[in-house]
């Protein structure tokens, strides 16, 4: 399970560095943030923090911005979502959409604020870029969450675990 999560994070970061090469507007899609939000919604706080830290730092390695800015932002967002999900029922797919939109807005605001606080050149235009990012990430994230549910949900894991037993039971019935 941990290996699957690590592969997911690595794939998200690698795809993110290549989206612009395919079609430049795809840069507004934040795949690492989608992965972080998904694992933060699974009610494992420590796992969410580690995923947020790793995904954010990996993004920073390939970006021109401050090293640690994305790591800080995504770690904090993972903690806030994991804390929220213990108090509010967010298993409904529709309920995840505003959570994802809020995560995108907070991520953009945090990164811009951190750069301003550390006297880096300002990142403009903020409103337009953040709006495009929110739309693209929320729409794509909704579909990606559905795909992740197929691979990572407990029900799917149980189904795979018992699939062998079901096949064996069917074969023994046929022989009789």
């Amino acid at each position, binding site marked *: 399970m941990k290996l699957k999560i690590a592969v997911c994070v690595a794939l998200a*970061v*690698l*795809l*993110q*560095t*290549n*989206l*612009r*090469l*395919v*079609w*430049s507007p795809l*840069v*507004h899609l934040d795949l*690492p943030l989608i992965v972080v939000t998904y694992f933060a919604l699974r009610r*494992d*706080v*420590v796992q969410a*923090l*580690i995923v*947020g*830290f790793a995904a*954010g*730092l990996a*993004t*920073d*390695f*390939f*970006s*021109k*911005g*401050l*090293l*640690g*800015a*994305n*790591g*800080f932002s995504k*770690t*904090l967002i993972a*903690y806030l979502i*994991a*804390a929220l999900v*213990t108090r509010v029922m967010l298993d409904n797919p529709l309920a995840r959409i505003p959570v994802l939109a809020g995560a995108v807005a907070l991520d953009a605001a945090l*990164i*811009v604020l*951190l750069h301003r606080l*550390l*006297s*880096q*050149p300002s*990142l*403009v*235009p903020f409103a*337009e*870029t953040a709006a*495009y*990012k929110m739309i693209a990430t929320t729409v794509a994230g909704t579909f990606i969450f559905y795909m992740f549910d197929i691979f990572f949900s407990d029900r799917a894991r149980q189904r795979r675990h018992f699939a062998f037993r079901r096949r064996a039971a069917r074969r023994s019935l046929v022989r009789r």
Partner: protein
Amino acid sequence: MAVTRTQKEIRQRAPLWLLALLGVNLVLMSVSARDESGHKRLIQVWAQAVASPVQSLFSGATGAGAGFFQHLGSLNRAATENEDLRRRLADTETELRSAQMARDENERLRGLLDFREKGGYQTVTARVIARDPSEWFDSVMINRGSSSGIEKDMPVVTHEGIVGRIIGVSPVTAQVLLITDERAAAGAVVGQLGASQAMGSVRGYGSNGLLDMRYVSGLEVVKQGDLVVTTGQDSIYPAGLSVGQVVEFKQGSATSPHEIKVKPSARLNSLGEVAVLLYHPPPRTPPPTTTPSNTDRERK
């Protein structure tokens, strides 16, 4: 024997994990922000160097995948008309795709070679293997580094025009800040260098891929369609390299400069191969330390 923790214990430890991870990020940010000499990119460029083989594979696979899906649409339309022809054409299309990619790459490399021969510059040809994953910055990673002679602040071009400059170097990779990034700039002139006085500087302008040319005197004659070239006075780009073409122009006056928007001549959204110019700008002569009147008095 594995230690099992209750949910309550995990939730109690979570704030400690949060503080520790945020602390690490804050330390990295403060080190990254404080170091102005260029060493701040050390961790980043070494991480990029380690990841560059995987990046190269991934960018190749992504490009092939995008091309594959584009062709799949046209193949589906053909498949409804004739199933047999689609099967036979599938093999032919694969060979054709490979040949077209090789031809496009050949044309780009030939353009870079012509540029090198005509310009007389020593160049290192490199391939773009990744773009900045963040929407706030515009940079790319290339697959050549200090082992090929590349140094910081060297200009990067295609045969069509300037692309940007090197901002970080590892032994096998380098990071290039594109000219369309708002933090990039270059000295430029509208028209021919030496013949025109419409000099200014170009820098990135928002996310529409245009450049903003500033400080051009409102008294100079500029019109839409004029070509913009580098002046060589910014200690980065040699003189005479193509920057782009004037696409929007608002007339200035004696007291206010023109407002000029330039479309870059290099196709920055579809960079494949680029050339790094192994160019070192001529050293500037230091200003005189004594005034003429002081030296005359000393002689007397």
